[in-house]
């Protein structure tokens, strides 16, 4: 940051040469620095035709001409035009969604058929969190208050009552299967759903959750 505020920098763009001039820099210093820089990169400027765009310190018309002179006198560059441009505000990059502690990525985990897999034996209790880049198989129950987040599929060989997120980095093809599928919340890729509020658990049958047309469906296995 310090360097930027104290010295001039050049940036080549499609529109032309962008010169970043620190706002508080004195005009004299600007000219000497420009001259120095151009002299140093004389080979680069030789015979070039350039548009100059400068940002930061606003120069007067005379000063602009002086700047052009500083450049042309120190190299064989031809300046076709000069204009001032507001320093563009830094573009706020959209933060990738991160609903379960694993950011959704454009390039996500695809090894659903075959790939890294974590086996967990025993009951996953409230407050426990399993985060894994790959498929997860739990041999035991996942209790309410627990969280399983995997970039691949999640299979629970027992009762699934906690929160689960399969394809957590954005893969909607991931599946969740359990001998008893009753999660507090079920997430696949970027889709979140929850179980319907049924008062009584009627059946105990293995089910699978998967995404079809952007909706999570739960079907018997």
């Amino acid at each position, binding site marked *: 940051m310090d360097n930027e505020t104290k010295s001039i920098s050049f940036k080549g763009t499609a529109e032309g040469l962008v010169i970043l001039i620190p706002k508080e820099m004195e005009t004299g210093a600007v000219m000497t620095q420009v001259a120095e820089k151009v002299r140093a990169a004389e080979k680069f400027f030789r015979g070039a035709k350039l548009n100059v765009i400068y940002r930061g310190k606003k120069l007067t018309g005379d000063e602009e001409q002086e700047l052009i002179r500083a450049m042309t006198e120190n190299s064989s560059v031809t300046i076709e035009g000069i204009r001032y441009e507001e320093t563009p505000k830094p573009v706020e990059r959209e933060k990738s969604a991160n609903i379960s502690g694993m950011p959704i990525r454009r390039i996500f985990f695809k090894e659903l058929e075959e790939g890294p897999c974590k086996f967990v034996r025993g009951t996953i209790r409230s407050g*426990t969190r399993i985060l894994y880049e790959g498929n997860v198989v739990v041999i035991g129950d996942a209790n*309410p*208050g627990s969280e399983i987040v995997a970039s691949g599929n999640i299979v629970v060989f027992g009762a699934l009552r906690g929160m689960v997120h399969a394809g957590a980095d954005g893969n909607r093809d991931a599946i969740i299967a359990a001998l008893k599928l009753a999660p507090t919340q079920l997430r696949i890729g970027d889709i979140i759903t929850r179980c319907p509020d049924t008062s009584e658990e009627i059946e105990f049958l293995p089910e699978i959750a998967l995404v079809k047309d952007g909706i999570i469906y739960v079907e018997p296995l």
Partner: protein
Amino acid sequence: MGEVIVITSGKGGVGKTTTTANLGTGLALKEKKVVLIDADIGLRNLDLVMGLENRIVYDLVNVVEGTCRIKQALIKDKRFEGLFLLPAAQTRDKNAVSPEQMIRLCDDLKEEFDYILVDCPAGIEQGFKNAIAGADRAVVVTTPEVSAVRDADRVIGILEANEIRKSMLLINRVRPDMVKKGDMMSIEDIIDILAIDLIGVVPDDENIIISTNRGEPAVAEAKSLAGQAYRNITRRLMGEDVPLINLAGNDSFLSKMKKLLGFKSA
């Protein structure tokens, strides 16, 4: 060599202290040498429930800090032979004791006593860590409420992570009539979630409140149903095989059918 058993729950107000007092008294009635440690520093009340408040001179913090000898801090319960209480400090907080100090204390007490029962504070912070540090086994107390069961689940997970695998479940304050109507979680539901061995079920009994306020553990009262439950739990704690008291009576055929079909009985 004695055994250290921590009585814990995660959630507050489920009956840890009452359980500690009753199991301790029960074990003493079985002619065991027992010491009860109140690990709830700053919020002590095991001494109240035991009716020994006015006899406290030294406490747990004094012992670990070396201000007094263990013998000096132990309060002998004159009603029950072989029963002692190591009270908590009231004017300090949980950070006054470290897990290492608790382990050393438990090890020292093990040489003299058959059972050391540690009354754990609610929560899973420093006080909890201190209380479980020296424990060989745990009794996890819960009530048939979703919040208590959820916290018990968390606590069991932490106990397992701390290599205390012999946790046993005590379900307190069960109301068979409400369970029957489907308004309260059943014992089966709770065991299904927590997946640990059941050491016993204590029915909701107003005699417990009376005896607790008087400082006389209910386990010594022959007529109390909760006292009977605690007596059975004491025997199970000692390794005896005692069948559960039937609190609810048998499910009728109709209610079984209703349950099967998913109806909530009115």
